[in-house]
């Protein structure tokens, strides 16, 4: 790569950002092999969560930075780069094996790279571009003068000011699809005129396509030789690592997060009372709930510790499938924020108690209310049996229902599921939840 307006190449400029061109020739202890990989997986998982919550670029930059600093340190500073490289290559092995795994890994690693690149200094960014051997030339002065007006026009159209010192590169338009799509570059005869501060886009797309190709190759190598050769050593570790990503409760930090989106399905299954399970399942199935249901489930979720941004992501994910994300933002997002006291009269609404839920009169299309009271006997039996209630316990529950003791029926259900007595009885769905959590994972310090 040739840079005309900055001829001096700083020999001493070095960067911590690796392009992972070739596997390291390093000796790695088997323990480190696994530990490094898990640390990196924490970073990638965190990025994945951040993306699914729809975080904005600057929020992502902060998040990636934090994740990187907290997970990828090493006691020995000289080992930090090695840890980066080793963990990357271990995870390549782990995630090369199916199309789906490759796609996830590619997307997360590219995001990680993008934000790490952004915080590098301009000098090291240039070093990295050189390492990619990008064949682009910076515009010469004469060329620059020829298209100057257009370049200024483009910068103004995207709300940026370009100065005379801004370095521009001439790049085939195919290399910068993002910039082309948003009309953020000037195009002339197949070349995009990319400003220095836009080069991240080029470098990232190169990084991505290199990694994508490498993953396919790794997969071939893995299936043809490595898996068999390493049967007794690396193979079990690699296989275990990829399933740990799929597991429900990975890298959960209990001090801050109360419940997180990725656990919600599992929690609904194990610890939601029937009324909430029902709403939750209907929502997952229909991608819609009427107002009463949204209030009852929404406030409950707030009560168990789903934060506002997660709640928005959760409702958006479902509703947008039915009504589209635009309508969701217009019509439904408001009530979610409202419930969290962020709109209207800004009351922090409290979750509904059993008493209130039992007193509802749900109508056609509604799913809220108390199943023990509002369900027909057949439907209730069917619902309870999906929770694993049967035989004697079922009879006991139905007996309470017939006598209009709905909360006692719920208490019996709780006891049957958790095989443990509940002396206080159930009088609030959130109490049901926190008692269930205490029994199922006693180490959790849930205060709800």
């Amino acid at each position, binding site marked *: 790569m040739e840079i005309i307006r900055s001829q001096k190449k700083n020999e001493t400029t070095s960067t911590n950002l690796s392009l992972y061109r070739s596997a390291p020739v390093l000796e790695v202890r088997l323990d480190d092999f696994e530990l490094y990989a898990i640390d990196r997986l924490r970073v990638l998982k965190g990025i994945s969560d951040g993306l699914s919550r729809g975080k904005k670029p600057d929020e992502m930059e902060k998040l990636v930075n934090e994740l990187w600093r907290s997970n990828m340190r090493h006691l020995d500073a000289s080992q930090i780069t090695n840890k980066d490289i080793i963990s990357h290559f271990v995870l390549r092995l782990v995630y090369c094996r199916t199309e789906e795994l490759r796609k996830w890994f590619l997307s997360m690693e590219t995001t990680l790279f993008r934000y790490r690149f952004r915080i590098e200094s301009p000098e090291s960014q240039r070093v990295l571009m050189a390492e990619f051997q990008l064949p682009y030339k910076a515009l010469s002065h004469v060329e620059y003068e020829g298209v100057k007006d257009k370049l200024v026009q483009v910068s103004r159209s995207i709300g940026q000011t370009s100065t005379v010192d801004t370095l521009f590169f001439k790049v085939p*338009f195919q290399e910068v*699809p993002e910039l*082309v*799509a948003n009309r953020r570059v000037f195009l002339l005869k197949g070349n995009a005129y990319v400003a220095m501060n836009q080069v991240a886009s080029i470098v990232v797309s190169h990084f991505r396509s290199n990694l994508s190709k490498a993953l396919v190759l790794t997969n071939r190598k893995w299936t043809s030789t490595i898996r068999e050769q390493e049967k007794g050593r690396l193979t079990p570790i690699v296989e275990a690592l990829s399933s740990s990503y799929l597991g429900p409760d990975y890298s959960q930090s209990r001090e801050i997060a109360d419940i997180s989106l990725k656990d919600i399905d599992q929690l609904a299954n194990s610890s939601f009372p029937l009324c909430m399970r029902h709403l939750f399942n209907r929502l997952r199935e229909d991608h819609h709930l009427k107002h009463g249901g949204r209030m009852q489930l929404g406030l409950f979720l707030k009560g168990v510790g789903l934060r506002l941004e997660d709640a928005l992501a959760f409702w958006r994910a479902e509703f947008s499938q039915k009504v589209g994300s635009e309508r969701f933002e217009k019509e439904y997002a408001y009530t979610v924020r409202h419930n969290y006291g962020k709109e209207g009269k800004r009351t922090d609404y409290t979750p509904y108690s059993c008493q209130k839920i039992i007193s509802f009169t749900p109508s056609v299309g509604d799913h809220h209310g108390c199943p023990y009271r509002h369900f027909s006997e057949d439907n209730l039996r069917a619902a309870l049996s999906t929770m694993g209630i049967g035989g004697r316990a079922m009879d006991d529950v139905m007996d309470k229902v017939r006598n209009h003791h709905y909360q006692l029926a719920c208490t019996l259900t709780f006891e049957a599921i958790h095989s443990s007595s509940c002396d206080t009885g159930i009088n609030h769905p959130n109490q049901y939840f926190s008692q269930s959590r205490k029994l199922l994972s006693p180490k959790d310090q849930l205060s709800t």
Partner: protein
Amino acid sequence: MEKDLNGAVDMQIDECGQNKHSRNQEDQDFSSNILKCTMESSSLMQTFVDGYHGKHPAQDQSYLSRREFSFTLENDIYLRFQSFKNANEMEQSVKEKCPHKIDIGPVYSIDPVKRHAYAQSGSNGFAPVERELVFDIDISEYNDVRYCCTGSDICLDCWPLMAIAIKVIDAALRDDFGFNHILWVYSGRRGVHCWVCDSKARRLSNEQRSSIADYLHVYKGSENSSKKASLTGSVLHPFLVRSYTNVLIDYFEKKLMHSQKLFSYEERYQKILGVIPDESIVTELHDKWKADRKSSSCFEENRWNQLKSLLQSRKQKVQGLRRCVEEIVFTYTYPRIDMEVSKHMNHLLKAPFCVHPKTGRVCVPMDPQHCDSFDPTAVPTLSKLLEELNTGGWKADTENGWSGTSLGESIQFFRSSFLQPLLKTCREEMESSYNAKVQSNKNSLNW
């Protein structure tokens, strides 16, 4: 590439014959004439292609057989994933199946007929690898801004909308993206298709195709918003500025505004006023125009000028009002491409020279430089062609098999302006890549 474009031509000519053949069983002369002509022209094409191409060592022999064709038979039966080893095979198949319509798809990694054999061997066995960059613009997308026709009809009053689309997109493809081999065709019914055939266009990924489509895309067709063109930023991108000053504003002020009588009826000008966010301006103009009852032939001219001067005089007060003039022009003129067709490699598009099954019009190429004078209603139809062939008698001279007909000019244009330059470039590219390969082999041997 060259091969199958030629193939496409053969095939279409073929098809004319076939369709007519099946429809006019009673007239043996007609059909035998057409059939003969078809044979002649396809053998011409065959020699033409193989003459220089088949013997070149760098040619990919399997290219044509990996290309998907799709036939639409009578009663809307679709036969997808057809492929052919050569033009003869294609000809045979067309004769046998008598498709009403033929679509061209991408070139796949393997022969699409054999795709099932590779289904088990992993996800990337069967995938599109090459495809012309295509655009599809339908007049029915403009139904909210034209009053001369409804539905899929097209007339000389709304044709300028298509001419605008051709000019804007053609200029962007050539000047901005640097493509050279661009074929524009009238689809035969309600719009135009564009085939970009440069080798770098054929190799674009889906992501790159999307980026081009997005670059060209301004129109946001939401039913619920009055503003249909979204223009943001304090100044416009050079591409939009150029389109506006070179094409859009002229067509709007000189043609469409008048032909569509945009300011003569309350219902129509109300829609235009809906774009303006300032209530007081809207009311002022609306009241003024409504009071003005005497009929006048220069409603358009006068009212448009009033609107412009009012919006531009208040420029300093309310931001974005000046932009309204541009937004109105963009809304009423800017090309509305079918994004999905352009974004994906595996989208099918009707082959050029095909006869449109509903109108009988032939899908003819046109010169983007002269698209203004193109008359979609005068495009040759199947029955007209037959008549011409019958009365004029087709010429034995195969070189000009169609010259006596109204299709002659189109074919001549297709060959000289599109096909020959394309074949030339392809041959040069092939030779240079072949030479490079030979060179590098030599080098590696020396090494």
